[in-house]
């Protein structure tokens, strides 16, 4: 980050805000220092900011450390199967358009075992908000390579080094035709809060790629230090209506944050149905 001053601001806001009401009584089971705490912070605040009715929030997760998210939210939550938060969230949203449906997934969930669902929720433009907790590692199963682990990095499954090149989640979302694609950082809950708010308001599928450290199993790639030193927000000149420039930045600058792409002209799935059947 350019200005690491946000911590002060943060304490200030914490004092004033009552966003903790969106937090459940359950104690997080995450390791001290895990990036997920920052994400939750951002999420609670975004809910508070939008004043979402608690009972209309549904968080749907897969399996992994990230999968525990719903249990820490004071709302309805469903912890599904590894990789399957998207299908379940889609069914829930289509059946209950009145709810705010958030789907949560780890990088293993979203790009590994569940990687077949993402293209379709994006192209169908189903109106859910998707939070990809990308720590570039399998956390809960203790440190195996994931779809975003860099080539050559040593992990518990590849002690001699990972032979697989990583996927670039942002490129994927763009290629799939996501109508909203942004990137946030667990170390900047304020910035992430804004992104979550924009995403929630977006009518259609919104994809949020969140860079977050696994302090226990990744000591070299997405560490707090490496992230803090490298992330930066997109220039204000970035035209988020341009697929091509979003794709170019996604391809070249892995640590850019902010709104990469948004197309508000694409009808959401339910709007399309209304149009076709109405």
């Amino acid at each position: 980050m350019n200005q690491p001053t946000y911590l002060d601001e943060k304490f200030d806001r914490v004092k004033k805000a009552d966003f903790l009401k969106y937090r459940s009584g359950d104690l997080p089971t995450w390791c001290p220092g895990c990036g997920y705490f920052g994400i939750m912070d951002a999420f609670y605040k975004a809910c508070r900011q939008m004043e979402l009715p608690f009972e209309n929030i549904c968080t749907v997760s897969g399996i992994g450390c990230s999968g525990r998210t719903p249990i820490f939210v004071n709302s309805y939550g469903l912890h599904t199967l590894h990789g399957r938060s998207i299908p379940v969230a889609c069914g829930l949203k289509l059946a209950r358009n009145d709810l705010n449906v958030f789907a949560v997934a780890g990088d293993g969930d979203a790009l590994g075992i569940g990687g077949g669902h993402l293209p379709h929720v994006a192209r169908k433009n189903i109106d859910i908000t998707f939070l990809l907790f990308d720590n570039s590692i399998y956390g809960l199963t203790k440190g195996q390579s994931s779809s975003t682990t860099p080539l050559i990095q040593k992990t518990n499954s590849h002690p001699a080094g990972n032979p697989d090149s990583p996927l670039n989640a942002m490129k994927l979302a763009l290629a799939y035709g996501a109508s909203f694609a942004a990137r946030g950082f667990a170390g900047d809950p304020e910035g992430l809060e804004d992104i979550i708010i924009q995403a929630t308001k977006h009518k259609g599928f919104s994809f949020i790629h969140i860079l977050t450290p696994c302090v226990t199993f990744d000591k070299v790639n997405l560490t707090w230090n490496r992230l803090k030193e490298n992330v930066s927000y997109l220039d204000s000149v970035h035209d988020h209506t341009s697929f091509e420039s979003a794709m170019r930045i996604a391809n070249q600058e892995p640590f850019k944050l902010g709104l990469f792409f948004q197309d508000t002209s694409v009808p959401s799935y339910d709007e399309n149905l209304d149009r076709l059947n109405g």
Partner: protein
Amino acid sequence: MNTFDIVIEICGSAGEGTISAGEILARFMSSQGYEIMSFDSYPAEIRGFGKCVAHTRVNLNPIYSPGKYADVLIALNDKHAISQLGFLKPDGILIYDNQPASFHEEDQSVAGMAEPGVTLYGIPLTQLAHEAAGNSRGRNMVSLGAMACLMEIPKDDFVTAIQNRYASKKQIIIDNNIDSFVLGYNWTGENIKKIDEYSFKGTEPAPPEDKLIINGNQSVARAAIDSNISFYAGYPITPATKIMEIMGKELPKTGGIMLQTEDEISAIGAVIGAGFGGKRAMTATSGPGFSLMTEFTGLAVMSEIPAVIVNSMRGGPCTGLPTKTEQSDFNIAVAGGHGDAPRIVLAPVDTTDCYEATALAFYLAEKYQTLVVLLLDFFLSNSIRNIDVPKPINPSFLSANIAPEPDQLNGYQRYRITGSGISPRTIPGTPDGMYFSTGLEHDENGRPAYDSDTHEKMTRKRFVKHGNALDEAPDVVISGDDGDLDIGVISWGSSAGAAREAVDAARAEGIKAASFSSIMISPFPEEKLKVFADRCNTLLVPELNFTGQFADFIINFLQRPVVKLNFVTGLPMASEDILEKMRELR
């Protein structure tokens, strides 16, 4: 005329109009007041000139199975029809093209290969079709005309049936079809001397009632819509595809949504999502898709979320025989997926049951907050019956969720252990009923818990609930003699109709017998089964799989030997085969 019973088969290669001729025949018979059951066989390939058979059984009384052997075989294609001759009765009728387009060797002509007792009627199908409409496309109609004439069926009523079938088509198509039929009828009347005994003359069917001519898939889809389903998710697969297609057409009309997913995993996931949201939802698939769904079935059971899956079984394993019938997914319907995961399984026996079992499935899924599997098979999905219009669904079936009373919301526990095993359930949007649900083992609040006590208690809760669903089981159907029996035939699903007919035939031969079947498979009405079994000297369990999956299942209740009768021919169960075994066992 109680014994009037005719099976007509039309056999051709893909593209010769075999299936549509069969459809017209069946609809005509129904319109006259006959009971019908018709069933088509076709190859798994789109093209390739594979063999098609349209099989129709016509009767004055209710029919329970399609009948194995045909009285009349109409051969549109000699090569395929030859392989069908084994299913023509020894004294049956063969109607064939005596001037086929291409020359046949003696041993490739169906007429040359028929058994001596068969009555042969050679009709110049191709030539007459050309005369009627200028090309050979109408051979199927010509052959129907010939058959109708030989069977002494009134011409005009049949013409009306053709008219109705093609009503939405261009006039020239209607005309061509009718002309072909009429020419076939007239030519036969003028040129052929009837020398057989088969005839519709003198049969007096009941005046046509308000009937639905539908197959099992249509029956299921209709019941789902009548049960206020609001969400369907699915992925195409034979023989369940049609259910999705009907949903795609009908659901939007009632404001519902049909979501075609990227695979079956996503389909059941979406159904569970909708169920969590408090809406009725369903998916339909066949073996390969069901295998893929089994991981998710555990979530419905563990998180106690209503979900309905139709599995219309085809020949297995693997891709197997996609267009053939089999009952070999019994095991995974009852116990597929890892862990101890009780689910309700219903296996309708006929087209009417398909409707009722579907309505029951939604009710049970909602009330017992669990997975319900409806087991159909290729035959039940695709065979057509003319059934009575179903009775309106019991209103109590339409809204079955047990919600907590307002005073239960204080300290609300989503997974509270109750006597019935059912915990009152809130749905998202309810302000004071918020909860977290997980496929991990969890305590009464829904929080993950891995201690021994919790897992034991919660496992028991899920099984208690499952066991209680037996109270809602449709009556078992026992048909046949009272008292002590030589043979009791225990069967399930689409095989049960054949069992029932076999028992009737066996009784006529002096065997004391009865058949037993239950639509509810899991939980199973084991006490009723035991009472029945105690009356039986020998137990016979016919089913369409190799190892006797259902037989093994009931042996666990009975702990006594049963005689297994298994077929993996891809064909529906035949009462004739059961009867033969009963004679052997008598």
